[in-house]
């Protein structure tokens, strides 16, 4: 569902992502992890079409994000880490706008169902400028899911969410993958990644440092009881001298 082939992204002289390739299959939750500056956000931005790759290809459900951008984006749902939404629209107006933009037939009733799911139904007619960070994050999730995308990309899913909503989102990501969709998430929360992800990709300095299921990663470091945090610390620490 997500195919990344020899992706390179440069910002002037800075090489942010250095020829990475990976796949995320249908029905899978893939976590993209790494320390600050590892290239996670750049990869996500390339995947979602926010920036163009310097070289390499990215395909979402078979459509290339550069040469067939409109088709690729029709299959994409995206939750950014900073949920900036038009503050002078109400939640309902925003979803109506996005439903029309994405050609969702029954957008109004679907939006209402999601409002109820996230407990926002009483606030749907209020301007977004009055929403708390958590409410905006929930609304961003609804906006990403409204058109039932084949690929869901989530950047830091838990920021600003209360425990109940955080639990809802975790269940939602796992449940969404079970429907045969692909979920790619980046997070600094190792707990979330370990709980939800089927596979993990560890990025460091723009390159893939490790990739696999939890068991495969444990094997790589030779510690059968290690949690993701330990694996992360060991893998990224090992990479540092080699890269410098």
């Amino acid at each position: 569902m997500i195919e990344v082939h020899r992706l390179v992204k440069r910002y002037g002289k800075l090489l942010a992502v250095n020829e990475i390739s990976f796949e995320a299959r249908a029905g899978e939750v893939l976590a993209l992890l790494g320390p600050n500056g590892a290239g996670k956000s750049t990869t996500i931005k390339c995947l979602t079409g926010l920036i163009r790759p310097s070289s390499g290809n990215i395909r979402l459900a078979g459509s290339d994000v550069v040469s067939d951008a409109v088709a690729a984006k029709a299959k994409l749902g995206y939750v950014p880490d900073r949920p900036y939404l038009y503050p002078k629209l109400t939640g309902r107006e925003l979803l109506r706008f996005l439903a029309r933009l994405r050609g969702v037939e029954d957008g109004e009733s679907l939006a209402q169902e999601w409002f109820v799911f996230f407990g926002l139904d009483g606030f749907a007619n209020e301007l977004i400028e009055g929403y708390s960070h958590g409410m905006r994050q929930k609304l961003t999730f609804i906006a990403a899911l409204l058109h039932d995308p084949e690929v869901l990309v989530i950047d830091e899913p838990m920021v600003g969410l209360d425990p109940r909503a955080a639990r809802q989102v975790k269940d939602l990501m796992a449940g969404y993958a079970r429907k045969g969709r692909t979920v790619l998430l980046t997070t600094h929360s190792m707990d979330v990644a370990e709980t939800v992800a089927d596979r993990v990709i560890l990025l460091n300095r723009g390159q893939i440092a490790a990739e696999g299921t939890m068991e495969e990663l444990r094997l790589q470091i030779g510690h059968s009881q290690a949690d993701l945090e330990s694996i992360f610390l060991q893998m990224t620490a090992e990479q540092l001298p080699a890269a410098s």
Partner: protein
Amino acid sequence: MTVFLFRLTAFKNSVIRAPILYSVGLVFLALVYWGILFLTRRGVRFLDQFPAIGTIADAVAQRSLEALFLLLMLGVAFSVLTTAITTLYSSEDLSFLLSLPASGLEVFSLKVVETYLSAAFLPALFTLPVLIGLGLEKGAPLIYYPIGIAAVLALYAIPVAIGSLLALILIRISPAGRVKEIATAVSVLFAAALIFGLRVLRPERLSALSPGEFELLLQRFARFEIGWSPPSWASEVVWSALAGRVPNAAVVLAGVSLILLLLVARLAALAYREGWIRSLDSRPFRFDSAVRRPAFWETPFYAFGRSGSIMVKDNRLLFRDPTQWSQLLVLVALAGVYLVSTSSFEVDIQRFKDAVGTMNLMFLGFLLAGVGVRTAYPIVSLEGEGFWMLRTGPIASSQIVAAKFLNALPVMLLLGGGLGLAAAELLDLSPTLALASPIAGFSAATVITAIGVGLGAAYPRFDATNPAEIPLSPGGLLYMTLSLVYAALMTIMLAYPAWQAIERPDYLFWMHREGMLLLLLLVVVTVLATALPLFFGSYRLARYEPGAS
């Protein structure tokens, strides 16, 4: 002091990071300075050399300076409203500054200085060449210059303080979440009224006065003192400094400014501590689970597909966001200025009317360029940080640009066509030019809108906080240049029918083959000049990367 140095370092860093931008700005500033200096010196020389005015020349110059001070003071007072609310009470760094080991008074003093720089820096900057020109022309001693500059700086501190106090009152009494809207509306209404009011005075009537009448007018003006007010203090200080003296008014001016600024800093700190700023917060929610259906006016827009949904969204935002709808008030004021100017021509001979009508075609283009810089050019950048929703949506950049163009076009067409028709009627043009006038209006409106939207898409500024600051960029300058070039090109294209109208008043140019050919050429040029910037904008927007432009 540390806090001030901290800000100074931030400014130095921004200069280092964008040396070209600041260099271009410096060159532009130098040109403007030279222009103001030149005009001031010519003005003072004219007064000194005007026959039979010798004894009152200084009084006239001093009153003129007072009038300039008063005008700029009023401008500062009302523009400072929104600035003060943003800088003093809702700036993002306020919490950080208050967490530093500095007193509340020190932090808010910095904020007052920031407010002063934001609201009064430009007026002060452009008053200085007037003072320098006056000093050079009057052969002032060196001491005049620092005293004059200090007087101007102190003078503009007064409206900053008064505006900030007014902002404080608005914050105290405004309904929650509405203070910025009210402040913006008050500011823009005042600015629009000021533009229109100044034009209604019709200064061109001065040219119709005989030398005797003009002299009488100057004598009356010389006696007309604003009275015991800051502008008269400042002009008194400036005038005394010309002779190398420092009058008592200087102490009064400096004292009042300083006391008012300190008062603002103290009251702002108090307002923050006492929680008066709660009206900046959003309104409390009303629990409302009703499923609201789309409004009736949305339906026609949806015929445009995905572009239509952007248009619906943009129209909602336009009328809800005061920083956007307030631009329409400026548009109305500019249209009023145009109509007043056009109706002020009192010419009896048809040939002259047509000659004025021809020049008016270019003026109409200039006006549309001025309106477009506030309506068409910022329209893509107004997506702001919400642009990610369009960028990650299944919509091509060409559809985004088309939506923005279609949304900006009706107002511009209404203005261009309407003013073109009104000018033909007001100037009583001959039939050929009466038709050329609205044609020029429609063509210029379409092309200038396309240039605005296209270049606005090619050089977006999604990080701008206000539509007014979006065109302050190389893209904005390019827009103004190309719009003015098109206005000139259109006038040149219509020069031949205009000449025909002047030479052969009964010849209805447009009904003949040459007229129809020219009309066709105009249509082709309009279509091309519309399509090109839109394509360019779409191309660049598709390749836009945050921070790369």
